[in-house]
């Protein structure tokens, strides 16, 4: 017999608030390691200097609990809720948004959300969060908070390719997107890619790919090879740290793939800046 676990949404609210502050002020060890590694590989003088400053910036932010970047972003929240969990005590969406409100206010984080894309009035508390919920087996709730800056989000792109364009077409579109982005998304970047599915599935996969531990290869060998090839190609563009030239334009490429329609080959490219922010808690 399945035992239903009861979780009060106030637990979710508290966790989200705490994750907002942690994710914005303290880069994960995966990011710090990647910056250190890239710093030793960068041969451009300006590039090496930039890495030094990015690492110093991360240390100041972590020790003083101030945000790594002033753009503390959209609050992107991935919820994986076990099907044996019964949520009580109120509305889950409201709980997540209350958590964001508390985290961004008490953490002195910037409020960047406007209530409507056309009238553009600031909501004043960085809500609403962008919430993606999935029901999974088990009785846990996995909450990932990935603040996402506007500058790199704006350089992201999606295209519905023809199946005949194949893997070469996919690569060409990704490289074109990165070259068009140039210095704007704050390189060194992390590139999240979704290939397949429908239009919205590809976009969502490209975002989800940006919650993966930095540089962890795809478990699928062929996908992992494609990630490596693309990383090399991107780092050959010469864009470099901050677009000021150099060997390291991207720290990693993360690809997610999914089944698609006989007529379709969707590709989504979601670019993250070097402040690759993501924190996860399992309740």
């Amino acid at each position, binding site marked *: 017999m399945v035992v239903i676990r009861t979780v009060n949404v106030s637990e979710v609210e508290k966790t989200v608030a705490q994750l907002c502050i942690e994710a914005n002020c303290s880069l994960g060890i995966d990011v710090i390691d990647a910056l250190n590694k890239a710093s030793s590989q960068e041969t451009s003088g300006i590039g090496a200097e930039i890495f030094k400053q990015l690492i110093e910036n991360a240390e*100041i932010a972590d020790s*003083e609990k101030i945000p790594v970047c*002033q753009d503390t972003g959209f609050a992107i929240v991935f919820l994986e809720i076990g099907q044996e969990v019964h949520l009580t005590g109120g509305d889950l969406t409201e709980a997540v948004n209350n958590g964001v409100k508390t985290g961004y206010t008490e953490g002195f*984080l910037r409020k960047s959300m406007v209530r409507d894309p056309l009238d553009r009035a600031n909501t004043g508390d960085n809500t609403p969060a962008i919430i993606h919920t999935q029901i999974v087996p088990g009785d846990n709730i996995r909450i990932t908070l990935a603040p996402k800056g506007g*500058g790199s989000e704006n350089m992201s792109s999606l295209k519905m390719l023809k199946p005949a364009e194949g893997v070469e077409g996919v690569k060409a579109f990704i490289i074109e997107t990165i070259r068009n982005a140039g210095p*704007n998304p704050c390189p060194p970047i992390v590139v999240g890619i979704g290939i397949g599915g429908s239009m919205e599935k590809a976009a969502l996969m490209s975002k989800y790919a940006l919650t993966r531990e930095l540089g962890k290869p795809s478990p699928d060998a062929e996908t992992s090879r494609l990630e490596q090839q693309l990383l090399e190609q991107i780092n050959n563009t010469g864009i*470099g740290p901050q677009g000021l030239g150099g060997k390291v334009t991207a720290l990693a490429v993360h690809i997610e793939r999914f089944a698609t329609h006989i007529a379709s080959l969707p590709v989504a490219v979601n670019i993250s800046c070097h402040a690759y922010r993501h924190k996860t808690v399992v309740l």
Partner: protein
Amino acid sequence: MARYSLTTPLEDKDIEKLKAGDMVTISGTIFTARDAAHKKLVDLINQEKDLPVNLKGQIIYYAGPAPAKPGYVIGSVGPTTSGRMDSYTVPLLEKGLKGMIGKGSRSKEVKQGLCRHGAVYFAAIGGAAALLSKKVKACKVRAYPELGPEAIYELEVEEFPVYVINDIHGSDLYSQCLNKSSV
């Protein structure tokens, strides 16, 4: 590549010597403004009204700071993407603006405007916002407090580090870097 220290307001002789790729530290007063404040400034210019700040010889920093923690002068404050301000830039150059600090490429119209009006575009390190906040010694809202992080702030900065991207001679550091690429 040369290194210079400049103090605002900038004079023509300060700007004439700068070349794309130079590293500059800036001290003195600079003003923040981003999308919403730019729209308001250009609306005032179109209505032939006075601006809330005198831009002659000044630098605008494209930035919207995070709120200051208690005991802090300002929150983290790095540059935002400059390209969003391109369509508002030439009217401000006509008002005497001499420098802009941001990140990312500018339009052809802006680059031509820099040559015509003797002004320069600098980039600060995007995402080094905690570090850059340490270069800000004083901060007050000068206009549009209702815009929150998008208000115009007057900052007193000391040795604020930037790179020259576009100089008055038409050089562009970003395209110089890309030309070296192997693609």
